[in-house]
């Protein structure tokens, strides 16, 4: 069946344009752009709202296997669809970790059966994420691993990490690093500085990130591996990143939505929903990272969705689990940057859809004819107050509870099939 979505603003992250237009979908793909709807096509009037490629979210934690009470593929998929996400690149730091072709197949099978959106699973880089022996990178890649990462854990041994990079480089596999010097970061719950000192929280110097990044970049220069830094959150890391780029290393960097919209003061009176890994940074760091995202030095913006149950968060700050859910708040939070004038819409979707898809070699993230019809229709201005208990995620640990936000998803398509329509939301209790 052919569907023509008319009267929309097309947000094109490839051309970096935003213009009124029409998009025609058939057979799961985009078949025409800005053409009159063909005879017999179903016509959907977008009411002048924005139509953009669906979000490709790199680094999503789902609780399967092991912690399904926190998030399942079904709930993560529903939450993503409601938030405009169409591809979830899932993290391997589950229990047990995804470090064998067999466990990757389990994830792929569960995801296909339960999730309304696409799941691209990542595999661990080392067995058991213990940082000692590399996984079967070749077999895992053949089984469909999107990338290799030990999650929010640095491979401490430079020798092991260098070997992993060398081996991965031979296969062209993407390695995702977590640039945090493990020694400095041990036990930290906040970023070192006046705020953490007055709160009496164990803290890590912002410099731990640059030390981790410098180390990784040195090893990348040595091995010529394809490397992505999962989260760059401090100003001190940016010159190192720019230098690596100028030297022609195959290096990209990401940042979580929380680190570009919140800062350490949001922790306030020990609010554990603001405990993240790495911890929230100073306002100066946040501003520098937003600027780097705007000029493209940081390539990828992600939700870093990390569901935690209530018990893990109802503890003193330094004992509470780190992480925040982000699938449904990702777009409205990102739109804060647009409303604030920091980034254009097309730029935002370059960081949220096009760049992650390109980096992983996926065809999504574009509005071009022939691209998969993974799309999100949204109203960037619609205001609302977030109520965490209305989130579709099983876990409700969002730092945006009670926040005034703008931007509502009206519809989401994956491969031309509609997986979310607003109104579902209004019918919810």
């Amino acid at each position: 069946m052919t569907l023509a979505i008319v009267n929309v603003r097309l947000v094109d992250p490839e051309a970096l344009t935003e213009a009124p237009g029409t998009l025609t979908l058939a057979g799961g793909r985009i078949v025409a752009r800005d053409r009159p709807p063909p005879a017999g096509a179903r016509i959907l009037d977008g009411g002048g709202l924005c139509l953009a490629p669906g979000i490709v979210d790199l680094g999503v934690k789902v609780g399967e296997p092991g912690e399904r009470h926190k998030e399942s593929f079904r709930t993560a998929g529903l939450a993503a669809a409601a938030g405009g996400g169409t591809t979830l690149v899932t993290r391997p730091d589950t229990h047990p970790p995804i470090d064998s072709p067999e466990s990757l197949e389990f994830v792929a099978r569960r995801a296909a059966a339960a999730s309304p959106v696409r799941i691209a699973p990542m595999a661990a880089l080392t067995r058991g994420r213990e940082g000692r022996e590399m996984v079967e990178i070749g077999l895992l890649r053949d089984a469909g691993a999107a990338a290799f990462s030990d999650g929010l854990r640095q491979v401490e041994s430079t020798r092991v990490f260098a070997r992993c990079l060398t081996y991965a480089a031979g296969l062209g596999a993407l390695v995702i690093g977590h640039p945090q010097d493990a020694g400095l970061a041990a036990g930290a719950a906040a970023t070192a500085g006046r705020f953490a000192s007055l709160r009496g929280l164990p803290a890590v110097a912002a410099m731990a990130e640059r030390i981790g990044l410098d180390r990784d970049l040195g090893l990348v220069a040595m091995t010529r591996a394809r490397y992505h830094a999962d989260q760059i959150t401090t100003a001190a890391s940016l010159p190192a990143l720019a230098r690596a780029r100028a030297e022609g290393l195959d290096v990209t960097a990401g940042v979580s939505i929380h680190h570009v919209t919140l800062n350490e003061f949001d922790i306030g009176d020990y609010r554990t929903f603001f405990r993240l890994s790495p911890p929230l940074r100073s306002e100066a760091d946040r501003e520098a990272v937003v600027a780097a995202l705007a000029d493209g030095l940081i390539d990828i913006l992600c939700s870093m969705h990390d569901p935690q149950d209530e018990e893990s968060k109802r503890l003193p700050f330094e004992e509470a689990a780190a992480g925040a859910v982000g699938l449904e708040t990702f777009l409205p939070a990102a739109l804060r940057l647009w409303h604030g004038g920091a980034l254009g819409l097309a730029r935002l979707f370059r960081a949220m859809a096009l760049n992650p898809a390109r980096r992983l070699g996926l065809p999504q993230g574009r509005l071009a004819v022939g691209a998969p019809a993974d799309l999100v229709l949204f109203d960037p201005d619609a205001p609302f107050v977030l109520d965490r208990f209305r989130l579709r995620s099983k876990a409700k640990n969002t730092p945006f509870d009670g926040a005034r936000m703008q931007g509502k998803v009206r519809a989401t398509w994956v491969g031309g099939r509609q997986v979310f329509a607003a109104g579902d939301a209004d019918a919810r209790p």
Partner: protein
Amino acid sequence: MAFAARHLLGIEQLPAAAIVALLDAAGDYVTFNRQPLRRRDTLAGMTVITLFYEPSTRTQASFELAGKRLGADVMTMAVAQSSVKKGETLIDTALTLNAMRPDLIVVRHPASGAVNLLASKVDCAVVNAGDGRHEHPTQALLDALTIRRRKGRLEGLTVAICGDIAHSRVARSNILLLGKLGNRIRLVGPPTLIPAGAGEMGCEVATDMAAGLADADVVMMLRLQKERMDGAFIPSEREYYHRFGLDAEKLSRARPDAIVMHPGPMNRGVEIDGTLADDINRSVIQDQVEMGVAVRMAALDLLARNLRAGRAEAAAAAASAAATGADHG
């Protein structure tokens, strides 16, 4: 009433006037405590629970005595033998105790912010008796009272806080309190034990005792908190004593009438010379313990007043709502 707080969680939330009001009330209790008959019924019929997740001798005893002298029923919770050891969370313990309807809970906990968390879950007044490296407000108040009585004022003084500042909640509360009242604060210690951002807190920083103690009116020594250290911050206790241990020679840099303080318990021969600690002309360490009881009596008294006022207001509001309801009925 200048002291209007519901809880005493930290110095950070207290305006200067509230601090002064608390110290004035505590001053009266010092006189009272020196009388032969030291019992009042200010808190008669009220229940005070002391809940200590860290071992403590002087603070817990001081609160217990303060409560008893004011006529309260004081229950001391020995956490080591309680359900906490069986895995009960802090919030569940708080809810359990809350159901027993205490009026005041005094809490010490090893995690920063834990007392704030507990306070948000209970109906009674909560006193922070030390949370992690965050705050220890009654210690700062008793230090302030000691200084005020010895120096005759609590402003424009140069106070050197020396030693393990990074791990010290006493230091944080003192920095906040003495800063609010307009004193000059100098943090003195090895750089590994000076917290990040100290300069932005309005403090001067010195990394040797000669510069740090110059012209100081008050020298406040801190205990080396070996139990909170997760690695080597100093090469040895011997070197630490040599460079930062307070002795007569180092003290000679301070003003001739400078007083020496220590929150206790002391590591004699590590951060302070034993003879100096016992020198009644310079050391006010015993005064601090005495002031501690008075400050805690004042804190319990004022919090209980606010608690009663709050309850009376709530009852009046309920009665008025019921009356309005009856009119319309």
